């Protein structure tokens, strides 16, 4: 895990239904675009539906972005930080985008990308991973974006003493599910309704929602894919996009909006609703009721910003992998260590071992 200091960029905890929608894949790409500009760090990645192929795709994408660091020792593929996944003994549901992308082959019929993830124990327990990452961030220096079922959030809430930790660490929490102020049943909420209800009732921080309507109002422009990602013919993000549907097509992008908002809070890309309370009905419909005491808000499209947001989507999601900053102790820690070293030198010589019992 990385050393962090109060000056370290915000760490984004991304709990995502990667591969269920192309929006989720683009949102991860956008997150890397922002991380490449040192505006944030990818603190942890967890998948919130039970499919190992989602973790494999996640690993492929992470390796792609790590490739800018150069080859690792011995020429091995870069080591990716543990990826959390909801575990299930049931066979995964059909996910054409996912299945097609991870199975892509080159001209010699060899798989384009390798993954070390073969079994559940090649992945992490998602709620423990999130808890551990929260502990590694300074107060107010983490953000969380969720796109997909609330399963991992609900299991996180089951851990002892977790609520104060979440409240202390998170600067912002954005959930890219639902439709606002009300709308059709939401597939993500429906897939784990008890978890959704638990999170809406018990989550210890304010939540901002990025709904389907926002995603539809500012979609990701499919026409940009062939040009923006052209610098790499085997770009995993573009490959996933092409695997999603017949090209070209635009996709609603609520998860991209959620990540962009969470990191560039003050950029004014979106409008915010008044405070209120979001509830979910038994058929998965979300409803927002205004309330001055409510901890929920939702993002609204600002017609004046649509073009700017779309431009940010394309530029950030297609950004080339950036080399990480040089590995050295952050300045604050470096200073601390120097002070400690100086203090240690002033200590009197160590005494002899104490008398034995």
């Amino acid at each position, binding site marked *: *895990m990385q*050393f*962090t200091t109060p000056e370290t960029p915000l760490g984004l905890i991304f709990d995502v239904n990667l591969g269920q929608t192309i929006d989720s894949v683009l949102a991860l790409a956008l997150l890397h675009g922002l991380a490449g500009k040192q505006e944030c760090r990818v603190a942890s990645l967890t998948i919130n539906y039970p499919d190992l192929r989602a973790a494999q795709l996640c690993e492929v994408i992470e390796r792609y972005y790590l490739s800018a660091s150069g080859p690792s*020792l*011995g020429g091995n593929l870069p080591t990716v930080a*543990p990826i*959390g996944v909801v*575990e299930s003994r049931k066979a995964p549901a059909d996910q054409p985008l996912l299945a097609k992308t991870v199975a892509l082959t080159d001209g010699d019929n060899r798989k384009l990308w390798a993954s070390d993830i073969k079994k*559940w*124990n*090649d*992945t*992490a*327990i998602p*709620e*423990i*991973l999130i*808890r*551990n990452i929260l*502990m*590694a*961030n*300074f107060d107010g220096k983490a953000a969380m974006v969720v796109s997909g079922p609330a399963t991992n959030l609900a299991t996180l809430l089951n*851990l*002892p003493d977790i609520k104060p930790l979440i409240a202390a660490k998170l600067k912002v929490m954005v959930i890219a599910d639902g439709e606002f102020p009300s709308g059709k049943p939401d597939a993500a909420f429906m897939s784990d309704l008890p978890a959704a209800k638990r999170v809406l009732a018990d989550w210890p921080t304010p939540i901002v929602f990025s709904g389907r309507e926002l995603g539809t109002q500012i979609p990701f422009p499919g026409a940009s894919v062939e040009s923006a990602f052209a610098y790499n013919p085997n770009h995993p993000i573009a490959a996933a996009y092409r695997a999603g549907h017949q090209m070209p097509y635009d996709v609603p992008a609520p998860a991209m909006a959620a990540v962009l908002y969470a990191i560039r809070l003050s950029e004014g890309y979106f409008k915010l609703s008044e405070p209120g309370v979001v509830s979910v009905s038994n058929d998965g419909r979300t409803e927002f009721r205004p309330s001055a005491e409510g901890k929920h808000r939702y993002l609204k499209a600002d017609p004046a910003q649509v073009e700017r947001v779309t431009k940010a989507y394309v530029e950030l999601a297609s950004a080339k992998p950036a080399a990480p900053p040089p590995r050295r*102790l952050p300045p604050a*820690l470096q200073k*601390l*260590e120097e002070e*400690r070293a100086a*203090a*240690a030198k002033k*200590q009197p010589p*160590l*005494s*002899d*071992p*104490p008398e*034995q*019992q």
Partner: protein
Amino acid sequence: MIITRKAVARRTFLRGVGATVALPFLDSMVPALATAATTPKPPVRMAFAYVPNGLNFKDYKLDYEGKLDKLSRILQPLEPYKQDINVLGNLTHNAGRALLDGPGDHGRCSASYLTGLQPRKTMSDIKAGVSFDQIVGQHVGAGTSFNTLELGIEDARQAGDCDSGYSCAYTNNLAWRAESQPLPPTLNPRALFERLFGDDAALSPEARRRRNLYRRSVLDLVSGDAKRLSQDLGPTDQRKLDEYLSSIREIELQLARADKDSIKIDPGFDKPYGIPADFAEHFSLMTNMLTVAFQSNLTRVATFLVTREGTSRAYREIGIPDGHHPLTHHRGQADLVEKVSRINVYHMQQFATWVGKLKAIKEGDSTLLDNCMIVYGAGLADGNRHSHEDLPTIMAGRGGGSFQPGRSIVYRKETPMCNLFLTMMDRMGVPTEHFGDSSGPLDGLDLT
């Protein structure tokens, strides 16, 4: 019906002037008319043997799950005991990680190993947490002489900076009685022996001086009692008692040798008088005494800090004059990597010998090892990378018949090491809902 078998109380001692020797579990301690349901089971014991600086992971890690088959180079010494161990993968100590405290992995990983909490980074006002062995010891120690025993082989300094601002109290102790009160391990075998078997504290200074002068065997002191007891025992128990007393005698002879021989090899640190010349001899002495302590129910809980975290001890005994810790930062240099593996194997050989001794001791229909949970572990996985996940963890024994050994069990990544502690607490009869950063008991170890 004529009952000829005479029951011996479980808490019978052989006593003499200045010595008390507890007895091992004998058949005669089972009441003559006991049925399987009423037969008292031998108690479950637990111990941790901690090795520092991680392991050379490539030579340690098994690349398979399920029934133990081909062992890795470092695990190879355990080949004869493959059916008595589980090799556990992916257990993690998050509290050992930097989190917000920067460098100091050695200090953190040892202080958090049994406490499950990140220690305060300091050289003065130390703070960690109560270690789980102490919690267990407090609950199960009532019928024993010692709630817990803390053993070690190396440095026991408690002050100064031992790692990037972490006090030596963090690297040099495993057990913590209170959050600011570590329990330094006993390093000197003779001190441990006298603690276990002698009543020196009760002797006058003159008597103690005389005893040290003549160095009489404690067995001589309790021989009258032993003879009397022997007359009441059946042939099997007589043999068990003889073997047990012989093992104590062996320890005494080892001690005497150590007293004479203590500076033959320089291990790289100052040794008090009586510390054995070489590492293997020291390890053997300490574990022999621990075995006797378990066998005779002097204690049920022990920690053994094999060497301290961050140690730069040299292993000239096996031709390695370099310090252990510097070697682990080998940067991939083949000759240094090889030396680390050799040290890791050497440690494992000593552990395997101990496992063999525990297995050789019968307890009713089982063995002492069957009734133990002995964890051989490290607070760092790979010493070169200072990683705190997938910590090397070997569990020897069947935990009183509740574990199914002989397997490589790989858990999901980030599984808290404290989950193992919860399971062990349960097997020790101290069920606990939460410890450290646990998320629930560890599955997969049970018989099912």
